[in-house]
């Protein structure tokens, strides 16, 4: 089945997400769609799946124009989408998730789950997906959840599969395995659209590549004639280097030490299991791992948002195991949280208010009777914005009105403009454009060079490899491996194996 997009334009208010886009998708072929965050990739694909309706232009299937009005229409026409954020009901079983919307039923609308299970098994067999039909989604690892998403689409007999950033949650080895599944689907005659911002992956899997920038197709080509450098230039619009400029680390005194830290959830499962490590001043320690292996909780325990059930944490020599978030903040611990919308900012607060979100009580802003000196706050916020290149006409606009990259720079500015000793940065560049990524990386390295200890947690292995002086790998709540990355000498493959749970001995 072939699908063609002709002159598609989509606007959200004043923002043009897609501008006159033309694209052809053919059966038995993998089309790589490359673009940085916010380039309009997801918008385009959501129009193919029927979730959005284009403002202008048309979609043709096998030469015939079609019109999608609702989210069910795309899949009905044979276009299935595997979303970046999984569309799975966590408390349902695999079979229930797969049949939702096209349920096999008996009399009185009775749900025939037996039949559903059999159907799931059949597809499992055909494409070698190996998904347990009766398991609850919430008990499955993300890699398997992703296969459930593919299963869902295949169950609906889709001929076109759109995979939106499918490798974000996989280890390098799982990516290889995943590519095997994709090639199997291609050989079965399916058309695949592979959306990503990772250059090496798109070169490895695609038969054809289209590049999207600021809502427009800015380049097309054959992966055989392209290389990463050319692709990057098409994607960003200028020459970019993805290597972070930094000198070898000069580690000094110990800044942070964790000793046998353990955290249990309310079912007594170990979210963090007996973790010990140190971060010294003047070095960047990166924690690699597939998301959901305890990194979020580790950051919460370090920053004081969660209390460990056992173990000890020291900061610059002082025991902080039982101290509050604010105490740690006062001592000079900066925290860039993993999800700025959930934690890092208040969307409706002004940029100025956001800039003092966790330092509003500071003496520098104090006015009589427990008031805040707002003039002082506003001036400081303006200075921070200038310093960190946060692009806004005024500090009195709501933080939520900024673009993703500027929001993140606002959060980073707030955390790094103080005098700090330790920077804990969790997913510091998630959902941010390339320009902002470069800038944030540069500032993190500067913090290190000024003598801070820097701890970076990221599920982007490239980010960890590029920034860290030392790499720790987290798997199922434990630190399973440590690598020296001076001069980038850690072996990417070995790190990947450790992310999948291979212990140090096996990895080596």
């Amino acid at each position, binding site marked *: 089945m072939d699908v063609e997009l002709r002159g598609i334009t989509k606007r959200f208010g*004043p923002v043009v997400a897609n501008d006159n886009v033309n694209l052809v998708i053919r059966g038995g072929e993998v089309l790589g769609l490359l673009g940085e965050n916010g380039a309009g990739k997801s918008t385009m694909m959501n129009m193919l799946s029927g979730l959005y309706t284009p403002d202008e232009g048309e979609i043709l299937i096998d030469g015939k124009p079609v019109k999608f009005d609702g989210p069910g229409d795309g899949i009905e026409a044979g276009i299935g989408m595997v979303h970046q954020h999984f569309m799975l009901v966590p408390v349902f079983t695999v079979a229930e998730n797969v049949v939702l919307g096209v349920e096999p039923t008996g009399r009185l609308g009775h749900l025939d789950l037996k039949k559903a299970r059999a159907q799931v098994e059949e597809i499992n067999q055909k494409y070698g997906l190996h998904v347990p039909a009766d398991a609850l989604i919430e008990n499955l690892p993300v890699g398997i959840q992703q296969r459930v998403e593919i299963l869902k689409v295949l169950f609906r007999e889709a001929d076109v599969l759109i995979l939106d950033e499918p490798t974000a949650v996989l280890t390098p080895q799982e990516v290889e395995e995943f590519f095997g599944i994709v090639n199997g689907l291609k050989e079965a005659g399916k058309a695949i659209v592979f959306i990503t911002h990772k250059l090496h992956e798109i070169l490895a899997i695609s038969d054809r590549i289209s590049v999207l920038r600021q809502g427009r197709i800015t380049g097309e080509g054959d992966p055989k004639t392209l290389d990463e450098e050319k692709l990057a230039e098409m994607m960003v619009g200028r020459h970019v280097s993805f290597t972070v400029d930094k000198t070898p680390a000069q580690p000094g005194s110990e800044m942070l030490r964790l000793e046998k830290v353990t955290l249990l959830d309310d079912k007594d499962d170990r979210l963090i299991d007996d973790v010990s490590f140190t971060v010294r001043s003047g070095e960047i320690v990166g924690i690699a791992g597939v998301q959901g292996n305890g990194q979020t909780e580790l950051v919460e325990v370090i920053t004081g948002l969660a209390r460990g059930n056992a173990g000890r944490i020291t900061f610059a020599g002082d025991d902080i195991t039982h101290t509050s978030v604010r105490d740690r903040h006062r001592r000079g611990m900066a925290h860039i*949280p993993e999800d700025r919308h959930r934690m890092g*900012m208040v969307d409706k607060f002004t940029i100025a208010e956001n800039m003092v*979100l*966790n330092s509003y009580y500071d003496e520098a802003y104090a006015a009589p009777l427990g008031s805040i000196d707002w003039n002082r706050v506003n001036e*400081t916020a303006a200075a921070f914005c200038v310093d960190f290149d946060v692009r806004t*006409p005024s500090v009195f606009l709501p933080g939520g009105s900024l673009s993703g990259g500027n929001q993140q720079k606002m959060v980073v500015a707030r955390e790094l403009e103080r005098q700090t000793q330790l920077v804990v940065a969790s997913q510091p560049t998630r959902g941010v454009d390339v320009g902002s990524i470069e800038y944030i990386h540069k500032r993190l390295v500067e913090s290190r060079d000024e003598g801070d200890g820097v701890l970076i947690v990221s599920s982007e292995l490239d980010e960890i490899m590029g920034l860290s002086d030392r790499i720790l790998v987290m798997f199922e709540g434990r630190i399973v491996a440590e690598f020296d990355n001076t001069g980038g000498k850690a072996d990417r493959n070995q790190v990947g194996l450790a992310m999948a749970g291979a212990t140090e001995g096996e990895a080596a």
Partner: protein
Amino acid sequence: MSTSIGKRELDDAGRALLQRASGGRGQFEDLVIVPIFAVIAALVLGALVMLATGVDIGTIGKSFVALGKGSVGSLNAISETLTSAIPLILAGLGLGLGFRAGLFNIGAEGQIVMGGLAAAIFAFSFPGLPAILLIPLSLLAGAIAGAIYAGFAGVLKATTGAHEVITTIMLNLSSFLILIWALKQPYVQVAGRSDPISKSVPEAGQLPRLLDWIDPNLRVHAGLFVMLIMVAFIWWLLFRSKIGFAFRASGENPDAARYAGMKSGLIIVAAMGTAGALAGLGGASQVLGVLERASPGFSAGIGFDAIALALLGRSHPVGILLAGLLFGGLEAGGRQMQVDAGVSIDLIGIIQALIIVFIAAPLLVRAIFPWGFRKDKEGGAA
């Protein structure tokens, strides 16, 4: 080691960022046009309800005239409007503060009951104190009682996550029973009475009437000043103080507040306590300024009307003040309406509920009244 935020010298680029953007048309529509249309629509629907229950057109006209006359038509009407507005605004301020902190406190009614009861008991327990001490102390007793009663719901929410909507409603229902029980206790009950009713507040404990030198029937009392001071105080608390910043942050994004080191449990209890204190103050001022004793049902639904008030006033102290004057007027006018046109004052309850519907669903108002709003929806929202 502490954070140090050095004084910054701003360059031109920095100073440019300090330009305040004007509120814009969208804000004007939200703050002015929507409430006006909401009130009009509610009054029209109120007329339809009267029509449906067999009230003839002439009487409906008469009721609206009475509504106007009873609220602003004379010095007495204005005095009545202000008198009704005092406890409404005090309770409404508390609810608005709660909304800002993300707490949907339905419990003002129970907090008013507790505040009024405590104020009455305190006042008749110390009849010997001079007015200058007895009035503030009785008000304080009411505020503390309200704060403690609301504090229960706050503590439950902070420690167990119990939703404040249900706990405060249960506390409301309990408060009525507690009131009746308390009013039957020998220490509280008037000697020689068998029905539950408290002893009277002594002269020195009563909030002085402000205009009785013109006409002894003008009931507006010194609670008016208490109310105005509280409007200013809550404005300062919410928008100028550190604790208010924490309240607002917790209300908008509790996770971000936690991240910023604000203690969510403490904030919940503090916000509920403050809200309860204000409602308690409302109950106290009603008992000390108007009723002069506590009796069953003295809260008269003020706490529920205050919910409407806080929503109508967008949880902003000044908005609540204006909304309170409107509701006070409806209340005073409604009484006139019952007398002049024989239409039950319960109609006012319907009108108030309708006002909140329209306020809380601006999309609905825009759908009914297409005029007065900019056509470009997306531009208006931005």
